[in-house]
């Protein structure tokens, strides 16, 4: 049975904070849940399914269901890093289709900025029982040098340049100038990006996303409920997930899990990349965006550099408006996990509720893609395709 249309996104909320020194992580999750319920026109007691991931404090759904005092028939805490929330939408569709819940709440929140976390540049050992740790930790893997190795290999194989990568940040900054909540609102140029300090070759400081506190929430509901609410109808028509690792040593850094999460989502939806009017593409780094665009089929493998150049991702200028809220590169990367904000901006676009300066005309089809974990080692690609009904 196809999951196409089994659920609708009826509520979406992004927390406006980018620095939350005065709030706990649990409170941030709950403020996001409250915001999404108000957006949907539902109340707390309507929720019967709850989805969270590794950013939820304590024992995941148990701690949060207790803190928020929910009564759920179904919980899920699949953790695939920043791509968990696209996966949660897919799993919510499955559980709705199976009759295990009718109204699913998905939350994300965290405060790496308040906690002074050196997100991208510090090596963390993690749990030494994790089978890869002893073979990686001594070598100093950081978030940024792992993504940087993907960029270096892409440049080597396809001739991609730092200037081409810079266009991705330039496009994000053009959008962020209109977002009052964005952390970085100054429009930048290609030159600004390539002249910013080198963090880990070939990635510069402006190739990296922001570190922010905050969060977001989504409500996914079954069709009958969605149609009884007063909000525009945003139907989920395609979902896919694809974890990718080092493949036993056959490491291939030139493509991401999007190569595996995209095809099932496209097939379910019945639409193709050229039909998409707006795309939210996970942007932990500029290279992340470029590789996902190729892997999702928006352009040929190796042609991503050309595709993103000359403002092609800028709303009103190029062919594929992306991350019109400013994305993780300029606006927000709450809990170091950008998956949920990708879906939220796609919902805004489909409802016609994006900022007027970046709103895509007649936006009826959108895609929101996540990449969680580390692109250079083990990560998950997760794809959601949405239609305005």
């Amino acid at each position, binding site marked *: 049975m196809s999951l196409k249309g089994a659920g609708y996104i009826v509520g979406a909320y992004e927390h406006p904070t980018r620095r939350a020194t005065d709030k706990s992580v649990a409170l941030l999750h709950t403020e996001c849940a409250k915001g999404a319920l108000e957006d949907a026109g539902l109340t707390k007691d309507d929720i019967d399914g709850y989805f969270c991931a590794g950013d939820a404090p304590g024992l995941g759904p148990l701690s949060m269901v207790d803190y928020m005092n929910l009564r759920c028939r179904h919980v899920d805490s699949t953790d695939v890093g920043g791509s968990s929330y696209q996966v949660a939408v897919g799993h919510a569709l499955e559980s709705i289709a199976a009759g295990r819940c009718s109204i699913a709440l998905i939350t994300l929140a965290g405060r790496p900025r308040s906690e002074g976390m050196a997100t991208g*540049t510090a090596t963390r*050992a993690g749990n*030494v*029982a994790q*089978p*890869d*740790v*002893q*073979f*990686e*930790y*001594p*070598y*100093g*893997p*950081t978030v*940024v*040098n*792992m993504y*940087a*190795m*993907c*960029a*270096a*290999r892409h440049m*080597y194989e396809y001739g991609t340049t730092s200037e081409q990568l810079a266009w991705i940040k330039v496009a994000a900054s053009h959008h962020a100038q209109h977002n009052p909540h964005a952390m970085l609102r100054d429009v930048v140029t290609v030159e600004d990006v390539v002249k910013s*300090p*080198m*963090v*880990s*070759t*070939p*990635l510069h400081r402006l190739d990296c996303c922001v570190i922010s506190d905050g969060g977001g929430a989504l409500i996914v509901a079954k069709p009958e409920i969605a149609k009884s609410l007063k909000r525009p109808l945003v139907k989920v028509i395609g979902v896919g997930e694809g974890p990718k690792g*080092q*493949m*036993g*040593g*056959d*490491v291939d*850094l030139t493509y991401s899990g999007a190569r595996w999460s995209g095809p099932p989502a496209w097939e379910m939806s019945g639409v193709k990349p050229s039909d998409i009017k707006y795309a939210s593409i996970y942007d932990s780094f500029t290279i992340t965006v470029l590789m996902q665009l190729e892997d999702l089929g928006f352009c040929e493998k190796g042609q991503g550099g050309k595709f993103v150049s000359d403002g092609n991702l800028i709303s009103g200028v190029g062919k594929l408006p992306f991350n019109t809220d400013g994305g993780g590169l300029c606006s927000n990367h709450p809990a170091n996990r950008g998956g949920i904000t990708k879906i939220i901006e796609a919902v805004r676009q489909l409802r016609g509720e994006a900022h007027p300066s970046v709103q895509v005309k007649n936006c009826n089809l959108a895609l929101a893609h996540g990449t969680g974990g580390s692109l250079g*080692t083990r990560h998950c690609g997760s794809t959601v395709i949405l239609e305005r009904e």
Partner: protein
Amino acid sequence: MAYVQRKISFAGAPDTNPETKPFWDACAAGKFLIRRCTSCKKAHWYPRGLCPFCFGTCAWEEGSGKGKIYSLSVMKRAEVPFAMAYVELAEGPKMMTNIVDCDLDALKIGQDVKLKFVPTEGGPPVPMFTPV
């Protein structure tokens, strides 16, 4: 610029994981082991009890210590800059490692490298590589 070696920390101890203790014991004795499947005959990385290609049983063998740089990133924003890399071993698999004892800015993808053990704090030396 003269090469400066950053301090390397080991994670846990060799016997943290009984599956790979022989590997670290060999490192302590100056030997670089790789793991090969007795069924499909493929070598893999990082070492596992069962083959990640066919779940066949595996045996240790001494690696040649030869390889070439598959990808590379010089971490500039670190107390002591260092070269993170994946090296494609002559035996096939690609392993995460560092390229040491060299001009970091002159390193290139595709370059031939050879094994060099680098001491750690709290554990056996770890296999790294240096240009041939």
